[in-house]
């Protein structure tokens, strides 16, 4: 994330969280936190406990973040992609934006249910990489549409059903929708190139062989007690080896929710 992007990110984050932004110009932002964020970012539970006990509102803090190098001489906290503060904010954002249910604002119409799922796939071999998929699954006919978040960008949503609209009940139940996604992913993954996994396996096999030979050569001459110890050590090492080199794919869901989209939009997405 570039420094400019960080500034924009912070601006969005604080305005979404309904904090008063006192100043925001290139590379410098000053905000008065609300209570929730004060508790989260400043970690001063005793203050809040005390304030509540004496029956007062409490004064939230005002923070200034500097994200542009040219502003560094100004008073405020220097913030960049690695700073713990930003990751605190990231984590808060990830937790807050996890589950949703939304309705398209599309006037007088029937609304179709979609399960939207943003997914992080982690491939772990000798190294690790991530891939993000955004999937929408039509809960009536089971169609899956990809890159879904891009499509949703243009649409406005509300958290309550708009007047004169009505929802169509899902036919595909949520757990079974997830099963379909899971099945799809396994298929998707089986078609990916897997050199990384082969390479990891090769290294695993090679190192395991070395390990076997090593312990065998010691076990031959060992006493019974020593054998016990060697066995334990050996199993320990195999365990490390598996963790370090056996290829693995992990699916984590970043966030997801139930979206009700108008017939028109739905058809457009499906490509009808």
């Amino acid at each position: 994330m570039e420094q400019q992007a960080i500034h924009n990110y912070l601006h969005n984050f604080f305005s979404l969280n309904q904090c008063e932004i006192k100043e925001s110009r290139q590379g410098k932002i000053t905000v008065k936190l609300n209570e929730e964020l004060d508790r989260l970012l400043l970690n001063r539970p005793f203050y809040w406990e005390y304030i509540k006990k004496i029956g007062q509102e409490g004064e939230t803090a005002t923070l200034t973040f500097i994200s542009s190098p040219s502003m560094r001489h100004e008073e405020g906290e220097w913030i960049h992609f690695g700073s713990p503060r930003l990751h605190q904010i990231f984590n808060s954002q990830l937790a807050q934006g996890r589950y949703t249910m939304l309705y398209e604002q599309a006037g007088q119409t029937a609304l179709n249910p979609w399960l939207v799922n943003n997914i992080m796939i982690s491939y772990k071999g000798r190294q690790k990489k991530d891939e993000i998929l955004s999937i929408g699954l039509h809960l009536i006919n089971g169609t899956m549409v990809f890159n879904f978040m891009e499509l949703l960008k243009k649409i406005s949503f509300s958290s309550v059903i708009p007047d004169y609209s009505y929802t169509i009940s899902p036919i595909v139940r949520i757990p079974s929708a997830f099963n379909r996604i899971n099945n799809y992913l396994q298929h998707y993954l089986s078609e990916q190139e897997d050199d990384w996994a082969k390479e990891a396996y090769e290294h695993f096999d090679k190192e395991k062989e070395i390990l076997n030979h090593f312990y065998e050569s010691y076990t031959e001459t060992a006493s019974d007690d020593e054998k016990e110890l060697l066995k334990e050590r050996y199993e320990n090492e195999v365990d490390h080896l598996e963790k370090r080199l056996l290829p693995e794919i992990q699916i984590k869901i970043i966030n997801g929710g139930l979206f009700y989209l108008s017939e028109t939009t739905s058809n457009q997405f499906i490509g009808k």
Partner: protein
Amino acid sequence: MDIKYQFDKQFPNELDKKLIENGPFCSFDMFQMAYETAKSLAVPNFKGLMSPNYLPHMEFLDHQLDCAKQVVEKMSGRAILADEVGLGKTIEAGLILKEYMVRGLAKKILILVPASLVNQWVKELNEKFYIPAVSQRKSYVWEQCDVVVSSIDTAKRPPHKDIVLSQKYDFIIIDEAHKLKNHKTKNYQFVNSLKKTYCLLLTATPVQNQLADIFNLVTILKPGYLGSYDEFSKTFGNKRSALKRDENLKQLVQNVMVRNRREDTGIDWTKRKIDTIWINFSEDEQSAYDDLDHELFSKDPFTSITLKREFCSSREACYLSLKKMVEQHEENNSKQEWGEQVIQKIEQLPHHAKAKKVIDIIGNSDEKFIIFTEYRATQYYLQWYLQQHGISSVPFRGGFKRGKKEWMTQLFQNHAQVLIATEAGGEGINLQFCNNMIHYDLPWNPMRLEQRIGRIHRFGQKEDVNIYYLAIRNTIDEHLISLLYEKINLFERVIGDLDDILEQLNIPNLENEIKEIFAESQSPGEARIKMENLTAAFQQNQEEGMSEDGTASNS
């Protein structure tokens, strides 16, 4: 191909539950922003380093980045980092650790270092790498904290041992790993039983005495990689020169060890210009100095040595000790009387010969200088004396709070010409803008000397560094300079080798060793001979190290 596959099981249930219970749900903006957040945190490639993006305030050197890449990409996170001293093994280790953390591969982390370095590691990891490391102070820390720094000695002792051995660590770093060279020691056994996925061993001297050292280190990382011990010694013998001569072994070791040398870093190291300045006491000063050799101290040679060292620094420093002595020995008339006499005598003295010399050096230059002295009294005196000559200075002490240290550094950088420090203790304080240093008096512990110089002669220093040593002839200074410092090139030497030499000579504390030599010698001649013996032992050790093997160490 069979690849272990895990699908998120928790999320579907949670969402289902939320839908039934009707929330709480977030807005679309929140939802979208969380998605964008995850996107910016994802690591899209197997190759390359992500960690430097997280650490924009750090300037890494090429060899450090290469090392980290090599360990991550080629060695799958198990390696010996064996750079020569001063090239930043700690930085490399931090970079690698950060990379594994950023990629979500390391969460539970254990860092074992010598007790004296625990706090420094904690500080560096937090400040330089934003890794929330804590030092192990309470036993609950082992289980509750993710990144723990401890000494091996603590970790291997009950009740800690059982807790530590029951943890599954993703990542373990062991600093000064050459201490593990002997596989029969408790430390070695302990480290070998730790549960670890990734592991870094840090040492500047991977082979100290015998070839088996490297076998033992590699065996911690990859048991069997060099065969069983019998196979290994049959194939390669036990001379450490094999590591240099045997191509096979060299290749094998290179696959698990990264070693950079100063000359192959491609960095233009600025030079150290060293100038020892000899000063003569005035007649009066010399006579006062000689008076400190009094038979009163025949049973207490340390006091006499201390007084002499102080007097070589400033009469103020000496005066304080004398005064204390007079107060303490009210019942001992002769000591008290003598003390008062000497005090009277030194009160008459003109300004200290060394202080005058300092004015000569600094007065002729408009560059900045750092002066180091061992004594607080000298520090005050010098500040006053410099001011008398129109030279502005700021004081600096290890005991200052961090904020004050930074403030003094800033004053020095922007306003004052001279910084007068009593201690190098200022880790992380940046003094590279200055390239002149005066050692007003010499510490007897050469480690301290290197720490002092290290404050200005480091990466980022653009100029050659001028180092001045002030020494007074016909005093204890002269002994130290001409015997120890000059003969073994202590001034030029990098501290790491010295550390190793001391360890091999079984000298835990050089300062005490020298003190004892002076204290136990009946005459200056005897002290001289003993010092020469010590020097000879140093030189011999140094030559042996050089001739036998260049790969292992420069010691």
